[in-house]
């Protein structure tokens, strides 16, 4: 899994690339959580994510919860088709 972060005004965009599973979920948290904690709006660009499992969904849920606590928000951008399918299934649970 690779990532790139870009900044513009009050938005940080994290471009994630590859497969997000239990093995790399903590790496994503380490990138995303400090950005949220800084109070900035965070966009997660998922265009390059070919696979995501429950660990990735968990990172998104936790990021949203954390953003609410910090009075900011997290948005998903350019969600890839494989991730959209997993999100659709997860929405039945959430």
């Amino acid at each position, binding site marked *: 899994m690779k990532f790139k972060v870009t900044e513009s005004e009050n938005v940080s965009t994290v471009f994630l690339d590859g497969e997000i599973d*239990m093995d790399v979920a903590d790496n994503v948290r380490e990138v995303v959580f400090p950005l949220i904690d800084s109070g900035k709006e965070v966009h997660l660009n998922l265009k390059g994510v070919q696979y995501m499992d*429950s660990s990735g969904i968990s990172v998104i849920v936790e990021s949203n919860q954390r953003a609410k606590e910090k009075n900011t928000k997290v948005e998903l951008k350019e969600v890839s088709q494989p991730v959209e399918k*997993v999100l659709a299934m997860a929405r039945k649970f959430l």
Partner: protein
Amino acid sequence: MSTEVGDTTNLSEKKDFLVNSSSLKDVRSFSREVFEKFKINEELREELVLAIAEAAQNIVKHAYKDYPDTQDRMAVRISCTDKELEISFFDKGKPVEKSKVKHRAIDDVKPGGLGTFFIQEIMDSIKFKEGDKPWINNLVLTKKL
């Protein structure tokens, strides 16, 4: 990877992996390779890969919760007839307490709970068995084709 071929409509592939989160990628690669060989359509293939990866993740997270540095191996066997897929997992970890295998409350989303929900959504049946020696646990997932 070992192949057991009964006849042209009864195929089986089995492979073992170190019980570790870094093996999950290898479990997915193995599964994709086998489903391609079994000519499972691509849409179903990716759903099945997700179910398999979640079940393997549960072994790492739960059966070996207290043993993160284990050198034990888990095995995955994928068998296919013209009517059904059967996916079996074998591990030597903590015995599964069937009553505790359920997804979590809505406001307590964690990977394990959601993963079990995904498995239930994708597969037709989930059975926990005692594994024949040397295995302790044997999870069997099936899906009608």
